[in-house]
């Protein structure tokens, strides 16, 4: 009977399972509509779409499609490209644009007018496009922009940490819900009192803001802050029910889940859940292509959640999705070779991996080994021994490139200074030079060939995460050639707190990105020690600090460019953040339903240029 029972149970289970077989529902296969299926590897999808709430995973990508910023930034040209706003100018105290006859910013005049220390801010005039509408049909005006920037600075109403950082250069402030300084002016908010003329006809489209006297001050205001609809949030946001409330009301939750934006897409809330996000074309979107047609060529975008990267990759290979919006390791490249309808985007990265040396630890964390790193000759020897080419070849499987010691990408031709490229010479000659430097300082070696300091082997640990072990093991081999031992040390879950800010490390790996758009922030963050900052190794070079401050505060763009150029050799010769490589961004798409994917520097294949260029096959 037991055999019969077992057989019956197995048969029943098989019957139930097969009975439940309703056919595989891989939607994309039978879908002939203009719908792009995009896979994303994440733990879950957001179900709230208030852009200021969502910082992780795919949330910023979705937010950027539902909402718009005032401008977007073109890294190639350094220009702000129109989005909600069409034009902006620095203006003189009478509100007149400070521009040349050709319409460009007149930096010379700007410096003449605002260069003196008694001038405390730069006034900026912003002109919005007159045809921007929210997805519910309401017209977008400067009052929406005022509301957004104002609430970002008002802790009592928004209490949003990121927004405070974005608006830190805007001279508009609140204290406990009371405005202490006004730096945003519209027709309805004190423009005429401040002496700015805005006519009745311009009242929806013209506004002025006051920013700190830093040329980069406008960048985050223009290109990071997604503008929010005042008519949606103003009626429901109060100090008790903040924009990002801990205990949101039902109405607030409804608005989180049914966003009203002005971006190229609108959320299909009915079809969206924690595993799929559906965006449909916003018929009211104001930007068009050169022929007056839709700027974005895809009608519907479906983001599909994959919690496991291997499953996502296989889904793409099997045709369940068109694009995988997650970078893949170069180890997977062989999976995509010689396959039909597969497009691999091998985009040049904007991110430089560097080895940071702790050359100025706090007093309590100093020791004999770390003291060695304060010697620039030792640092130079370490930098000379590192073989970037091998790291690119072996760690990145060729999907990357070597980087100048000035840490600026060569592709940024306006800023890159070749004089800073002092570490990419012949490796054999570099090793001879490095060993000669160290032979003069620490000539004695132990039986394993490592140099001796006192009675101890010269040895450093490199703080890293498990994914960085391969690069650290390569560095072990590189530095062994000059008699220096390095070992891997795990970073743990909160390295800033446990190791980095309190100087409890010898060396660590850190990513660095420099461009004109972030130079004001990043040069200071990486090379000027101001207590807690990401300048982990606490470099403190007064001359470099002075030059960085000069670059940040100059109002002359050409001077700024020149100073960025001058900074690069200075940074290179510190041998403080030693470049290791710049890895490419590898992403994959299928081309059997859509063609026209565009590879964009530093971005995945799912980017706005691809969306503006895609064409359906057949």
């Amino acid at each position, binding site marked *: 009977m*037991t055999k019969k029972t077992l057989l019956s149970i197995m048969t029943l289970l098989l019957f139930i399972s097969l009975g439940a077989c309703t056919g595989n529902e891989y939607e994309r296969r039978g879908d002939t509509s203009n719908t792009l299926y995009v896979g994303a590897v994440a733990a879950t999808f957001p179900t709230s779409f208030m852009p200021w709430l969502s910082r992780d995973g795919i949330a910023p990508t979705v937010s950027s499609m539902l909402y718009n910023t005032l401008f977007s930034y073109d890294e190639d040209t350094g220009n702000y490209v129109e989005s909600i706003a069409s034009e902006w100018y620095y203006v003189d105290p009478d509100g007149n644009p400070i521009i040349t006859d050709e319409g460009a910013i007149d930096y010379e005049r700007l410096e003449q007018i605002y260069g003196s220390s008694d001038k405390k801010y730069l006034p900026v005039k912003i002109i919005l496009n007159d045809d921007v509408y929210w997805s519910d049909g309401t017209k977008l005006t400067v009052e929406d922009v005022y509301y957004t920037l104002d609430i970002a600075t008002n802790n009592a109403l928004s209490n949003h940490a*990121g927004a405070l950082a974005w608006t830190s250069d805007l001279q508009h402030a609140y204290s406990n819900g009371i405005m202490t300084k006004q730096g945003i002016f519209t027709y309805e908010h004190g423009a005429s009192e401040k002496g700015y003329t805005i006519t009745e006809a311009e009242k929806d489209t013209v506004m002025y803001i006051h920013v700190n006297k830093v040329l980069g001050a406008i960048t985050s205001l223009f290109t990071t802050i997604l503008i929010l609809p005042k008519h949606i949030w103003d009626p429901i946001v109060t100090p008790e029910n903040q924009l990002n409330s*801990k205990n949101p009301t039902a109405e607030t939750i409804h608005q989180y889940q049914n966003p009203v934006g002005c971006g190229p897409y609108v959320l299909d809330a009915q079809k969206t859940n924690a595993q799929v996000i559906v965006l449909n074309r916003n018929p009211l979107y104001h930007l068009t292509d050169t022929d007056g047609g839709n700027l974005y060529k895809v009608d519907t975008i479906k983001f599909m959640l994959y919690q496991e990267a291997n499953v996502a990759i296989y889904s793409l290979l099997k045709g369940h999705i068109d694009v995988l919006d997650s970078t893949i390791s170069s180890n997977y490249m062989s999976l995509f070779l010689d396959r039909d309808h597969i497009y691999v985007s091998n985009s040049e990265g904007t991110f430089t991996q560097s080895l940071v040396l702790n050359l100025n630890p706090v007093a309590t964390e100093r020791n004999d080994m770390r003291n060695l790193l304060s010697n620039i000759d030792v640092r130079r020897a370490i930098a000379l021994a590192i073989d970037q080419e091998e790291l690119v070849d072996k760690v990145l499987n060729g999907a990357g490139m070597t980087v100048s010691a000035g840490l600026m990408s060569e592709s940024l031709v306006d800023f890159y200074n070749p004089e800073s490229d002092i570490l990419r010479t012949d490796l054999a000659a570099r090793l001879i030079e490095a060993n000669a430097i160290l032979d003069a300082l620490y000539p004695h070696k132990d039986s394993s060939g490592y140099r001796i300091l006192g009675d101890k082997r010269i040895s450093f640990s490199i703080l890293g995460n498990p994914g960085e072990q391969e690069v650290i093991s390569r560095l072990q081999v590189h530095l062994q050639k000059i008699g220096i031992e390095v070992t891997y040390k795990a970073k743990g879950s909160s390295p800033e707190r446990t190791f980095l800010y309190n100087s409890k490390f010898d060396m660590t790996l850190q990513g660095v990105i420099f461009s004109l758009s972030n130079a004001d922030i990043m040069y200071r963050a990486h090379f000027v020690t101001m207590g807690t900052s990401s300048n982990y190794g606490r470099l403190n070079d007064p001359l470099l600090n002075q030059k960085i401050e000069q670059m940040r505060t100059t109002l002359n763009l050409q001077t700024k460019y020149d100073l960025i150029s001058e900074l690069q050799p200075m940074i290179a010769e510190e041998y403080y953040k030693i470049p290791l490589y710049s890895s490419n961004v590898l992403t994959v798409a299928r081309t059997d339903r859509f063609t026209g994917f565009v590879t964009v520097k530093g971005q995945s294949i799912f980017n706005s240029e691809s969306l503006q260029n895609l064409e359906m096959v057949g």
Partner: protein
Amino acid sequence: MQKSFIIKRILYAFFIFLIVMTLNFFIPRIGVSDPAERYYPPQGNMTEIEYEIIKQVTREQYGFDVSTVQQFINYVDGLLHGDLGTSFQPGNPKVSHLIAERLPWTLVLSVTNLIISLFIGLIIGTIAAWKRGRWQDTTLLNLSTISTALPAFFIALILSFYLGFEKELFPAYTNPNMVSQFDWSWESIKVVMYNAALPIISMSIGGIIGYGQGTRNAVIAVTNEDFILTARAKGLSRNQVIFKHTLRNAMLPIVTSLGMSISGLIGGAVIIEQIFNWNGMGTLFLNANNTNDYPLMMGVMLFMSAFAIVANLVTELCYSLLDPRVTVGERR
């Protein structure tokens, strides 16, 4: 069963819960002096002053701006009012709501897995014991060795790739609309069964072999007892001997094992859920961990611990029902 025994067990379980609750509150705070730093790690582009402002904002929003003792009091007060806290997720959903959303889907997998594993495991374990030394027994022992070497997530990946992607017999991963479109209709139930097939098979393989092995050992231990020989000598049929005498007396270790399985029911199979995109408690906890959402981590951990404590309590009480000697032993 003695009433005092039950009360003693309940008080003991409550005491364990208090310890778990206290540890659950303090452990996430170890190593981070300021919880706001865990919620909002330092960003490279912030000055120290900006970061201080940001941390203050975060502290106020999540109630970290009071002393740790006061936070603990607030936490206990919240628990007494059924409030497990507020998640850091966008929209700040209540932790209890998130658990309520995910729990049924984890139970679909884990309860089905448990029933299948237990039922089939009991049968094959009994057969193996009865056919001790023959091919049925050696097969089970060999499978047991193999299953120990093959973790469930590895089996899941193989099944997902072979039966899901290659053969397309079952979905390689969960239909993203399964949860949102579920409406208790037969069609919906079929969709859930279809999508749950591979995760359940992946989990059950190890479970069946585990229960089979456990049952086999327990049955063999009982089979050698005199009363089984007596039952046989009485001329009882094989099935009567197995079901009325052998299995009944072999139940204690199986119930212990079952109790342990029940206490782990809602923990979910984190990696299995991840591979099959199954939105259950396991992925909720994983997501909380990945995003430093420790109100959610604390909430999920506390809920899982409470469930495990209750399950263990019930198992112990059942145990004493099955074997009165347990109660007597306690009384001594």
